[in-house]
């Protein structure tokens, strides 16, 4: 296995990705392996699950998790990373100019592919540092999860794409060339839509961005390779929405040469509940217990059907993690989560 090993946990929102990532990282760290768990999801769940407070939110500096020996955790701040990207790939003058460009700042804050790309670069950075043997990455939910994987090529397309070249000219001669003749109808339209002041800012931005291309393209290709060799785990629950989302990961990731390895079915209910009855007595409590058993029996059946459906649909290993009433709040809780899981150790 090449070092560091990369494990990416993805899936719909609300299926417990962050908690599962923390659990997986905690188990791997127990084998005295230097492990880093990274969350791209801006939620505090990671810190909560590990029972730690994370300082240095904006510097992307990992925090050691106490009592684990070899586990570190980090929450990515993508705006900071995005600025670091431009500094890495261009001259200080261009980087300063970009940092001052209001359009760039807004893009860095809000362009989802840029955020996802920045996260990917940061992961690559951690991978290259040699400080860890295993990286466990928790992706943003839903669309953001797919975007995390597609961002490197989308960034390459944006910075080096034909449209941009068409807009700005084949070489990078300066702003005037932005107003190429071929681009004029487009620019007239854009002028009607957006006004010329913004257009100039965009032109400046795109021209500066193109100076990043070589570095960025090489880097994006490296991130792609990193994702290509990562172990990708897709998490789901029995909710139809999350199952649909999981199916989408399995069908669309291979298109970009990423193949999900296994499914984690979270919030599983015991099969023994399906046919169980409550106590026989005649008291109100007996009645209530029977009613409760009956309704959770129905849920357990639905849950089992969902697991069987996913297993039949996707020919991949599946781990099941039992439904905990409360998400873990410390390392020992995480250890319980993984201990109660079925098949999780096998896929790690």
């Amino acid at each position, binding site marked *: 296995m090449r070092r560091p090993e990369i494990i990416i946990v993805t899936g719909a929102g609300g299926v417990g990705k962050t908690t599962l990532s923390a659990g997986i990282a905690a188990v791997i760290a127990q084998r005295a392996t230097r492990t880093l768990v990274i969350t791209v999801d801006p939620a505090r769940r990671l810190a909560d699950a590990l029972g730690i407070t994370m300082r240095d939110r904006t510097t992307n500096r990992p925090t050691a998790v106490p009592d684990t020996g070899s586990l570190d955790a980090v929450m990515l701040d993508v705006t900071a990373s995005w600025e670091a990207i431009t500094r890495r790939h261009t001259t200080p003058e261009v980087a300063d100019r970009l940092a001052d460009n209001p359009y760039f700042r807004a893009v860095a804050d809000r362009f989802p592919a840029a955020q996802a790309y920045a996260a990917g670069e940061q992961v690559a950075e951690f991978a290259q540092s040699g400080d860890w043997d295993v990286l466990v990455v928790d992706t943003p939910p839903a669309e953001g999860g797919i975007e995390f994987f597609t961002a490197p090529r989308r960034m390459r397309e944006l910075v080096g794409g034909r449209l941009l070249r068409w807009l700005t000219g084949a070489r990078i001669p300066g702003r005037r060339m932005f107003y190429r003749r071929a681009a004029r*109808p487009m620019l007239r339209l854009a002028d009607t839509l957006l006004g010329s002041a913004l257009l100039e800012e965009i032109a400046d931005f795109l021209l500066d961005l193109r100076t990043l291309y070589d570095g960025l393209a090489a880097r994006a290709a490296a991130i792609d390779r990193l994702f290509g060799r990562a172990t990708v785990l897709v998490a789901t629950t029995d909710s139809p*929405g999350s199952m649909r989302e999981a199916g989408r990961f399995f069908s669309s990731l291979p298109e970009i040469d990423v193949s999900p390895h296994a499914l984690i079915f979270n919030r599983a209910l015991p099969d023994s509940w399906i046919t169980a009855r409550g106590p026989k007595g005649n008291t109100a409590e007996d009645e209530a217990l029977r009613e409760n058993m009956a309704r959770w029996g129905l849920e357990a*059946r639905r849950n089992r059907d969902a697991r069987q459906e996913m297993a039949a649909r996707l020919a991949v290993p599946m781990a099941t993690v039992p439904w905990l009433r409360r998400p873990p709040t410390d390392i020992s809780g995480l250890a319980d989560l993984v201990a109660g899981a079925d098949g999780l150790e096998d896929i790690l």
Partner: protein
Amino acid sequence: MSVPQPALTSLRPMLERRLLIVSGKGGVGKSAISVALALRAQRAGKRVLISAMTDRVGAASHLGADRLFYEPTTFHGDIQAMAIDRAEALDEYIKLQLRIPAAAPMRSLIRAMQVLADTAPGIREVITMGKPIFDVWQANHDLVIVDAPPIGQLMSYLRAPAVVADLVPTGAVRDQAYRMGATLVDPEQAALILITTPEDLPALETREALVELESEQLVHLGAVVANRVLPPFDISPERLAALPERPASEAAQHHIGLLDVQKTALAQLPIDIHLPYLFGVHTPAEVAARLADAWDNNL
């Protein structure tokens, strides 16, 4: 701890509005409740359009269909539903809303605009969110229900008009954005229906969303809805401890544990509407119908 106060507690004024935006954390049942609301509005004699912003399948399944299209499809007599496709919305936006001359070389222009819309912050949001708002302006329906993205993402859509106004000093997009913002903040016309489930994380995110909504005033809060609320279960701790039957005691403890989480989660929130946890197997269409009925029982 101060909790933002609910905006209103009755359904009627809500359905009198023109635009209801249904959002919440991922997986709380936004699509099911969007369709349930549409069924309720239909019972009140409204012509409804459901506008699915996230995907083509979610709301469709609760209408008993496989998928939705950009062209509205009719369900249950007169409920219409569509899925917003960003490329098609952009196309329509450029052609109709911005009155671009037909002679313009559309294909390459639209492709180039897509690049701009993808990079220029706020613009794609304004165009996507613009579609249901245009439908409100066109007044072909009494009520437009938006099955919106998760609340974190929705906030960037709601902020988009202001972002565009900051970023775009002149131009048609700015004018459109301004008018959109005005519709969104008008409580007579638009309201947000915020969905949560009685669990830690959804409750936390809902609280945070309420604080942001309160301070930013981007849209009026119509109602906070708790979905999948578990029924009470009364049993003495002694009896529970003495239960010999294993699945029954596990299931009882499971339920009681979840009730405990539910109590904490809901205590932090100003819930207007409680919708029940539906146990067992239901088709998505049944889920929507049951939620529509349950909504009535709240009043």
